[in-house]
């Protein structure tokens, strides 16, 4: 038996060294933990974000760029695809809906995306959380995290978020609905009719844009009225769009559609597929980081064992005295082993907590920047990681413990 009070008194007496060891182990553990948690959060978060989009069709070019722009709304100019593609997709019987996504403007750093009303509903999971979908050129539906109330006014700024540019004075959108939260970049998007984006940029029947007279309010309702309707069926001369998000009726349809639109001049991808490829690249970075974290842990454990071995040399007298007083050898072994493990265990627990907090902080920051909600959560895998760490430590702690066990006990040693 090892008296707990004795261990506690021992650790309290050596608190500075004990604290240093606990912190060292905690930091090494936190590093590994944070890398692991963050990577999983990124994977889960982006997979969930891509989940809502079956197929993305765009002009031939980079698949990754297409997904990053259309799904994650990363500001980057995409080549335009001929408008006939949108029309064909919209009228394809295999398609549930084909939503164009048109970029070009922003409002206070939030992207304005031109699309169709159905998508404003579908992208948010089938229902709006507030208000209704847009039904006129100057109406907008905002993402869940856009800080605008219903009735709020949006003056679009030309250029992608962060690019700067001039304010369009021709139009101001009015917020008529809010999407349900999705945990994706779309939570920060402002959805407007694609026709409005076209007109604003002089595409399609731009002439139909009514010139503004002096003043402000007069544009509000007159705009939508003079254009026939919004969305599909699209006119013969549909203007070009950078990307179309397609929901197929069946899985088989999805594969057929992707095959059909894969050939130039278009490009069709399953976002999940592109993400997996991206993870492959990310995975290398993670492996490297994970390796560094593991190396740090191994070094720390070796350091801890060295320290305890050196420390043990200074405790020979104490251990000899315990033996002289009748402590059995296994108690000495258990004593040294428990003390090392108490420190390693405390460090590992603290490190897991610190790693979690660090991953959470990074995730929160990323969410603020991208809108992608990154779920930082523990998984069985993390327990395995901790168990592995403790297992290695338990083995390593045997070294000083065995040294103590084998140390000859004589009174003469006492000094």
């Amino acid at each position, binding site marked *: 038996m*090892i*008296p707990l009070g*004795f261990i506690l008194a021992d650790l309290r007496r050596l608190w500075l060294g004990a604290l240093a060891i606990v912190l060292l182990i905690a930091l090494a553990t936190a590093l590994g933990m944070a890398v692991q948690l963050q990577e999983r959060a990124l994977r889960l978060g982006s997979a969930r974000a891509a989940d809502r989009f079956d197929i993305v069709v765009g002009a031939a070019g980079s698949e990754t760029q297409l997904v990053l722009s259309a799904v994650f709304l990363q500001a980057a100019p995409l080549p335009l695809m001929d408008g006939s593609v949108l029309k064909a997709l919209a009228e394809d019987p295999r398609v549930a809906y084909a939503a164009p996504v048109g970029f070009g403007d922003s409002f206070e750093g939030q992207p304005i995306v031109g699309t169709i009303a159905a998508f404003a509903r579908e992208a948010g999971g089938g229902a709006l959380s507030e208000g209704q979908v847009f039904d006129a050129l100057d109406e907008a539906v905002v993402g869940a995290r856009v800080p605008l109330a219903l009735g709020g006014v949006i003056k679009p700024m030309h250029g992608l978020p962060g690019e700067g540019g001039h304010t369009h004075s021709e139009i101001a959108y009015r917020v008529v609905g809010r999407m349900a939260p999705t945990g994706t970049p779309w939570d920060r998007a402002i959805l407007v009719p694609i026709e409005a984006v076209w007109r604003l940029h002089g595409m399609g029947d731009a002439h139909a844009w009514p010139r503004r007279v002096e003043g402000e309010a007069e544009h509000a309702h007159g705009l939508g009225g003079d254009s026939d309707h919004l969305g599909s069926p699209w006119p013969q001369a549909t203007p070009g769009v950078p990307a179309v998000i397609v929901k197929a009726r069946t899985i088989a349809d999805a594969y057929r559609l992707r095959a059909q639109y894969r050939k130039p001049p278009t490009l069709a991808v399953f976002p999940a597929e592109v993400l997996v490829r991206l993870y492959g690249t990310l995975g290398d970075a993670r492996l490297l980081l994970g390796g560094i974290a593991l190396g740090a842990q191994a070094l720390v454990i070796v350091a801890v064992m060295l320290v305890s071995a050196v420390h043990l040399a200074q405790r020979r007298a*104490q251990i000899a005295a315990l033996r002289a*007083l009748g402590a059995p050898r296994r108690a000495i072994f258990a004593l040294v082993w428990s003390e090392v493990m108490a420190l390693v265990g405390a460090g590992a627990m603290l490190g897991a907590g610190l790693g979690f907090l660090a991953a959470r902080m990074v995730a929160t920051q990323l969410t603020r920047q991208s809108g992608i909600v990154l779920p930082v959560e523990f998984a069985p895998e993390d327990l395995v990681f901790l168990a592995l760490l403790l297992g290695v430590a338990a083995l390593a702690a045997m070294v000083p413990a065995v040294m103590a066990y084998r140390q*000859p006990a004589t*009174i003469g040693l006492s000094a």
Partner: protein
Amino acid sequence: MPDLSLEAVRVSFPGLAAPALDIPALHVAAGTRLAVTGPSGAGKTTLINLIVGLTRPDSGRIAWGETDLASLGEGRRDRFRAAHVGLVMQNFHLFAGLSALDNVLLPARFWSLRLDPALKARALALLERVGVRRPRQKVETLSRGEMQRVAVARAVLMRPDVLVADEPTASLDAEAGDAVAGLLCALAREQHATLIVVTHDARLVARMARHLTLVDGRIVADVPVARADGAAEAAQ
């Protein structure tokens, strides 16, 4: 309470020409108060290590009654020591951070998870007996004299058959040393334990019944202590 007998005991250390200890025969009757003296390096501590089972001789028998420590393995000797031996060392070897009481109880804690309440009561009584007034005081804050008294209480806690002390008074001033010496003798008598004391302290030797002198690992004198200072004995 068994007698101690050594037969043909030899201990050599590598690098030393002569054996550190060479005792053809020694018999110590149960209950004896034995003083061991001799110059530094004479083998006194070596002898003590043998008779409490911390080390084994190169050859010979070290028997407590029927139990020959020289033939027991480390685990059995550990158990023997825990059950039969109480030890007091020159540098006390109390454990900082623990109270006087916890120090006294420490040896018992190594053998059982739950502490017998009777044992705790005994520890408190012993601390009172040796004159440590505040059993909950952290041991590192005690005076040196008090520390050694705590060590004495610890040594007798498990009712040992033999009390062994290596220079118990050497790091104390005369007054504290005297008090500790008196306690050792009194407790050994009360507990009916054999008392074996290694010492340079003439006043401690005077309290003993038998006086063994070691030189270069050999017994050069083995005499009863003169009753001249029997008065001191009686005065206790």
